[in-house]
């Protein structure tokens, strides 16, 4: 790496104008810019060069940006990634963030914003090292008082998943096990509450450290009995969504405990090595 540059940034986009615009802006800001219109070529460049950060478009012919991110995780998961998405394309942006990108930019973007984001991204790797050291000494407790509204489920699930991700849990844990358990338990309780015009809230607490996550859920009307969580070996009636959901909770929990009155259920997830 040239000692006078702030880092090498790889730009991947099938539009030549974007490549030129970003290369020029980043060079002026003290970065060394590499560019390519091909995600496949980008993978070669990443393997052959000390890339500090990647900016990639999502929608490209051939291999798209999401596939590029996935492949990059195999080569070097520590390279910060910024994705460029179409205006209002938040679903794709969310997918990209879920796969490891740390920021997304909507087109049309402001050049100053791009440079600010790149500067921010350059600080991430050193922060990651410090974070890893702190994780072994960290525990997180979260308490939720959840109104009977389906709209809040995704937000609650996201908060807990994010915390698990920050504590170093595997992607399988934070993107699959945790959101499934929370989504299904909350949905069941809120559905039940809405059917009975219950005007209260649902209580959930999360206690996590780097080794295990305990999600404790309180049901107002005692709906969480052991019978409501079928074993995966039982025949599934797919039209009974709630029973299917509870089977999923049992599958994704390493341990599942119930109170006799059905008002308390505790799911434990262990971190995977």
């Amino acid at each position, binding site marked *: 790496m040239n000692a006078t540059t702030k880092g090498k940034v790889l730009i991947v986009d099938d539009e030549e104008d974007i490549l030129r615009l970003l290369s020029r802006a980043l060079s002026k800001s003290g970065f060394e810019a590499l560019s390519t219109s091909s995600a496949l070529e980008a993978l070669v460049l990443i393997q052959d060069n000390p890339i500090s950060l990647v900016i990639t478009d999502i929608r490209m012919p051939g291999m798209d940006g*999401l596939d590029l991110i996935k492949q990059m995780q195999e080569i070097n998961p520590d390279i910060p990634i910024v994705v460029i998405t179409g205006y209002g*394309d938040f679903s794709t942006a969310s997918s990209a963030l879920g796969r490891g990108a740390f920021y997304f930019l909507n087109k049309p973007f402001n050049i100053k914003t791009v440079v600010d984001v790149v500067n921010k991204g350059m600080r991430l790797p050193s922060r990651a090292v410090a974070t890893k050291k702190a994780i072994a000494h960290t525990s997180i407790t979260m308490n939720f008082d959840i109104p009977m509204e389906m709209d809040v489920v995704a937000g609650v699930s996201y908060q807990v998943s994010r915390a698990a991700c920050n504590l170093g849990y595997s992607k399988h844990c934070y993107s699959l096990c945790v959101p499934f358990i929370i989504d299904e338990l909350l949905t069941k309780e809120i559905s039940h509450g809405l059917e009975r015009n219950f005007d209260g809230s649902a209580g959930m607490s999360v206690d996590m450290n780097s080794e295990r996550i305990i999600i404790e859920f309180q049901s107002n009307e005692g709906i969480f009995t052991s019978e409501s969580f079928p074993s995966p070996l039982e025949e599934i009636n797919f039209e009974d969504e709630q029973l*299917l959901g509870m089977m999923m909770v049992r599958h994704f929990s390493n341990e599942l405990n119930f109170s006799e009155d059905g008002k308390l259920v505790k799911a434990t997830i262990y971190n995977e090595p």
Partner: protein
Amino acid sequence: MEVNFREAGKITIIDLVGSIKTNEDYDVFKKSIDEAVSKGKTNVLLNFKNVNFINSSGIGRLILAAKRISEDNGNLKIAELSDDLKELFTFTRLDTKISIFEKEQDAIESF
């Protein structure tokens, strides 16, 4: 969730993007199936490459969609599940109800 439509001969491919877990997602999904069926397209392939999450209600909607298309003498199939969703579809034995393929091309050739 977003959906995009493509055609491969007599097969309609619906690219699903995002997650299938909210009422809005279920509506978008249902409308995409309705649109295909209303145009007489009953060979439908759902590409899950860009789907990162589906809950039990989403799975229920999948089953309903498969049933509806089957009643019109059509076929609903799925391709390109992520490893996470593959695990989900396998242990719920959903893969015994709907044909699932690793690669889109294999799914297309199976119709």
